[in-house]
């Protein structure tokens, strides 16, 4: 079997550009997802049942349906209502953010609820209101516990961003498909793409382990 490195070399600049989109989409997705997820978590923990219900169903929907379906709903359904012409990068970013927000919300909720009730009671008995208590006492402690699951969610998101190739977002997988289509080859483009993802996820895992160690030493 011949392995045509020349295809990879020819497509290298495009793969590189795609890589930047992949990184951009996952970083953007996790950041927006985290901000959104925080509020969804607060909503789901509300004292009022009527407030909780929409947040519960948001989480149910985005965790209980395939990301690919969500991507189509956003790109072909939601975005045309908001902008024209639509933009595949924005569609992918919106879908990834909405999706990761649901997972992040559950991470936040678990983190916040893992903090001993005594912490909340101590803060409140000092006259601190719910905002002060959340901001200074509960959240900072919960956040430390959230870093490992948040990191995992980031890695998942990074891999899942490859689905955006199907709506023609010019990320890493998209250029792999393009190279494959042009030369009718499978191994060279997809192995190149696979190794790039692997490089990203392994370095992230390494970084996460390092951060975790630093935090547990403190």
């Amino acid at each position, binding site marked *: 079997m011949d392995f045509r490195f020349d295809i990879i070399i020819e497509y290298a600049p495009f793969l590189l550009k795609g890589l930047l989109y992949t990184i951009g989409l996952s970083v953007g997705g996790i950041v927006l997802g985290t901000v959104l997820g925080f509020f969804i978590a607060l909503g789901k923990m509300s004292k009022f049942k009527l407030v909780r219900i929409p947040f519960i169903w948001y989480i149910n929907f985005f965790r209980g349906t395939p990301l690919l379906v969500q991507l189509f709903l956003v790109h072909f359904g939601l975005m045309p209502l908001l902008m024209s012409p639509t933009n595949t990068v924005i569609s992918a970013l919106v879908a990834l953010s909405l999706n990761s927000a649901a997972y992040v919300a559950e991470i936040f909720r678990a983190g916040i609820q893992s903090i*001993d009730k005594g*912490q909340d009671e*101590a*803060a409140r*008995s*000092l006259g601190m209101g719910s905002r002060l208590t959340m901001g200074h006492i509960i959240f900072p402690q919960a956040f430390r516990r959230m870093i490992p699951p948040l990191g995992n969610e980031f890695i998942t998101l990074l891999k899942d961003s490859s689905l955006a190739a199907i709506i023609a977002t010019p990320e890493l997988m998209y250029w792999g498909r393009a190279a494959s289509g042009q030369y009718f080859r499978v191994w060279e483009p997809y192995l190149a793409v696979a190794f790039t993802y692997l490089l990203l996820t392994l370095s992230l895992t390494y970084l996460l382990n390092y951060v975790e160690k630093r935090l547990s030493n403190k």
Partner: protein
Amino acid sequence: MIRVKNLKKSFGDVEVLKDINVQIKTKEVMVVIGPSGSGKSTFLRCLNRLEETTSGTIHIEDIDISDKKVNINSVRADIGMIFQHFNLFPHKTVLENIILAPMKVRKKSREEAEKIAYDLLRKLGLVEKAKVYPDSLSGGQKQRIAIARALAMEPKIMLFDEPTSALDPEMVGEVLAVMKGLAQDGMTMVVVTHEMGFAREVGDRVVFMDEGYIVEEACPLTLFSAPKHERTKAFLSKVL
């Protein structure tokens, strides 16, 4: 200072407090004793509304704190509370633990808050612990820091819920000594404890609770030497 009238509290269908009536005067030290599950903690936690009451009224000075319209945060700022398990904030240093609420709730400047904190730490002989995290403290030190944290708010009342129950025996004394000092300085205190020696020595009044009622209350001398009710006698014979 505190007037509790017809206080009732239920968790679901279970009535834990069944008509509590009691008054606590300024500078008085009231000790609450009673068997496990009798409602002592629940009673104490109602006094700063960590538990919502089911019915009845609790007046702190002239404010009915069971009224939903009351700004409960400003009421709580004036009532210190000490817990069995200290509940120090583990992600903050001792100093940060003490100055947080004075700065955020009382709106004091950092300098003012730190001055108050260091004065308290000096009194307690814990100045050298100002910059360490609670994890590195002994249980007795943790509880004394928790007391300092509460005192930094300059409260009018202090509530203690079994402050020495989680301590190794050799550390009980140092915490009780701080509490005794507070009582001598004229702090109004409600103390739930199993330390009968403390109750006798420091308490102005001892209240015996059982099954959600105040069964008997008297000055320590009377209650310990001549209890009136059978249940009080039975309880005292077990703990004394």
